């Protein structure tokens, strides 16, 4: 009968038609303006109160942002990050109840080059956003994604995190902030007029070449996310911010969680989808919108005229099956229609997970993936999916030992590289493999499981930004050095604190 033995007794409940009652479920007076899930109906006033309260409560509960701290809001122009910006504005309002007490700034990354927008189109979007940012009254930074080509190596090196921030230090910071406040009035801050840096056409081309070198949309999206993340962290660092706020909402995170699972990123799920992510050490990523559904945000933005700017992304106008990301998104969206608890259920899963990283944050570079900077997940036991895949690949290439050709292992000379002509296709044979592999480093050993998949989907890694390639070379040199002297090292693991 059924192949799978585990039983799943209670079916998830299917969607019932909402029975909309006329009155607000909260105050029972005003008439309903919004329906969040079937049970919750709100009038305009109560909805705003509920929405605003949730934002403060999320930040308050997690106590991760210190008073007076500089916080960089990543605003993409989409509904979710614009609602986040709006909430920060509301919260900093002089007469707000439970006022927010951090110092916000805004970053917008112009990804126009990834979707082949013209310079004019990009400029137009940028000026639309500029207007929104000016109205918000916070300092803002606008960066073209091309900037990622000029990042320093330090970006992919996790900086040591400032000492554990405990509840007591939080309180001290509050006191300090209240005292310091009088002299340093928030509203007096002048906006930094950042005109759009001039983008060199050659930079745009180089970046497009890099994105184009990924053969699949899945790899392209993964790579783009990674690069964008690097740029965000770099800007936060160089402008003196210590927190980076992302606008990921609950719906987005549910999709992200399922995407991450599908891409082999199980070990880093908690960081990818949790409230905070400390993989970069000194810059902590925070997701204050994670308790809102996409619907709630859309209703709020609509009702309270929160401005948004539509920005096309890499997977706009692509079919469902174009990439793992697209497929997962459409899968979750469709399932949510039939089973309205889908998103919240997946999302709750993320709260029960934690990062696999052994105990504290290790500063040992070799433990971190060169690209996503998560703790490496490839040093697994023999009986594992990772090892099983390696074995499968070996068995499909090398000669099965014991059959006709007796010499069991003589792979290097002719066999290894060019023999798999069927798939690899380096056909003609004249020094085909050797020449290419010398210049570009073999990144595999420096990458986590999932980033290896991304790189595997790339025609070549030579278009990767210099900061990644040179850091790779540096790590490989360290590896080799370590190997050479391994017999003299007494303590393994400790790298002598080099960063």
């Amino acid at each position, binding site marked *: 009968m059924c192949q799978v033995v585990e*039983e799943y007794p209670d079916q998830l409940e299917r969607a019932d038609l909402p029975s909309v009652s006329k009155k607000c479920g909260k105050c029972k007076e005003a008439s309903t303006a919004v329906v969040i899930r079937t049970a919750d109906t709100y009038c305009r006033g109560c909805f705003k109160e509920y929405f605003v309260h949730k934002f403060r409560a999320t930040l308050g509960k997690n106590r991760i942002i210190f008073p007076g701290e500089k916080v960089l809001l990543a605003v993409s122009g989409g509904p979710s990050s614009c609602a986040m910006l709006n909430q920060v504005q509301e919260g900093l309002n002089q007469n707000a109840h439970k006022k927010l007490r951090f110092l916000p700034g805004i970053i917008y990354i112009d990804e126009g080059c990834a979707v082949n927008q013209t310079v004019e189109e990009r400029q137009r979007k940028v000026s639309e956003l500029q207007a929104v940012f000016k109205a918000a009254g916070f300092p803002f930074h606008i960066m073209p994604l091309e900037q990622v080509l000029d990042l320093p190596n330090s970006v992919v090196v996790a900086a040591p995190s400032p000492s554990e921030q405990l509840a007591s230090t939080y309180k001290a910071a509050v006191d300090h902030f209240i005292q310091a406040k009088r002299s340093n009035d928030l509203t007096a801050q002048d906006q930094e007029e950042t005109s759009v840096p001039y983008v060199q056409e050659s930079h745009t081309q180089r970046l497009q070449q890099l994105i184009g070198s990924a053969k699949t949309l899945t790899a392209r999206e993964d790579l783009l996310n990674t690069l964008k993340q690097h740029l965000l962290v770099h800007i936060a660092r160089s402008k003196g911010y210590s927190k980076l706020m992302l606008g990921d909402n609950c719906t987005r995170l549910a999709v992200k969680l399922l995407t991450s*699972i599908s891409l082999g990123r*199980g070990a880093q799920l908690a960081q990818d989808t949790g409230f905070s992510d400390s993989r970069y050490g000194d810059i902590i990523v925070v997701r204050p919108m994670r308790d809102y559904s996409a619907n709630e945000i859309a209703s709020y933005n609509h009702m309270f005229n929160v401005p948004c700017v539509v920005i096309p992304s890499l997977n706009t106008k692509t079919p469902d099956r174009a990439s793992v990301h697209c497929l997962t998104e459409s*899968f979750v969206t469709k*399932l949510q229609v039939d089973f309205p608890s889908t998103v919240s259920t997946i999302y709750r899963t993320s709260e029960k997970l934690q990062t696999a990283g052994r105990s504290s944050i290790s500063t040992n570079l070799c433990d971190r993936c060169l690209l996503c900077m998560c703790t490496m997940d490839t040093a697994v036991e*023999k009986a594992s999916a990772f090892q*099983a895949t390696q074995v499968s690949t070996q068995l*499909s290439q090398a000669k099965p030992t014991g059959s006709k050709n007796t010499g069991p292992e003589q792979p290097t000379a002719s066999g290894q590289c060019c023999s798999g002509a069927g798939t690899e296709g380096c056909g003609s044979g004249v020094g085909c493999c050797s020449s290419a592999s010398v210049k570009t480093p073999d990144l595999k050993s420096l990458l986590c499981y999932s980033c290896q998949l991304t790189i595997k989907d790339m025609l070549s890694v030579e278009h990767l930004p210099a900061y990644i390639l040179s850091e790779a070379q540096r790590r490989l040199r360290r590896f080799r050095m370590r190997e050479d002297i391994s017999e003299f090292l007494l303590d393994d693991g400790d790298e002598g604190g080099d960063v």
Partner: protein
Amino acid sequence: MPVLCSACTEKRAVLKRPKTGHSLCKECFFWAFEEEVHYTIVAAQLFKPGETVAIAASGGKDSTVLAHVMKLLNERYSYGLKLMLLSVDEGITGYRDDSLETVKRNQEQYELPLKIVSYEELYGWTMDAIVKQVGLKNNCTFCGVFRRQALDRGAIILKVDKICTGHNADDVAETVLMNVLRGDVARLRRCTAISTASEGEGVVPRCKPLKYSYEKEIVLYAYFKKLDYFSTECIYSPNAYRGYARTFLKDLESIRPSSIMDIIHSGENLCVREGVKMPVQGTCKRCGYISSQALCKSCVLLEGLNRGLPKLGIGKHHRLHDKILSQQPLTEKEERKLKSVDF
């Protein structure tokens, strides 16, 4: 120009491996497939020499290939295992008769002893009779719960040390997805384990030697080896929600063939936050089988069937367990709630 096998580089390739994309000849594919299972068995230390191992045989492709490969590897590498086949007869007219015939043919081919345990002899109910009472909507709940226990009971009758099941990589990946969709962290953590230790009395340790074998490669193996199997999906409709997960997995695989392994890798590396409540495994007060409640699922289902209250085991009615155990009658209101079943 014919494509040459990428392993021996001599013979003509007859297939493209779904798992790795390599083109292989028949012999090299057989070799790779078998060696991978062997690697898994050795790496995960699934068996000890001298053990008696029951292969859960349904007559389907997975268990047929499992039986074939287990017998072959046991001889090739002298595992020293005593193998036998264990089948469950759920009592489904048409479906089971045919598949049991297949199992019986396998028994002769592989010269392995076969034991068939039936729902009827274990529970007093055939699946046909159950479906008559509970309808088609929930029958897979029964089928899953009863099957799990039936294998254990059969294994105990046969006095085997372990049961190996035909779960393949697709099944495991699908279960990971299912558990994420259902937010079931406890199962999510357990479902990628390749073997389960004996969790209590009446439970025989289980393992999945085909855990890293792709379903498509299992079919390819059976096809080229001309193995005889019975290929029919369960005639009573399978769990609809699992169907979504299955379709999603197939779509993922078509985008990136390694997805199946990638999901298993994810599952193997998940970490559950400390302090998240995990159900405590105890034993059933009636039959002694493992259960996190006073009564195991199977006993609750049976009670429901015998009392004509099929919904008893389908919803969550833990409060009623004590009543059932002490044989107290249910109130009229409780009865009414448990009786109606929509077909």
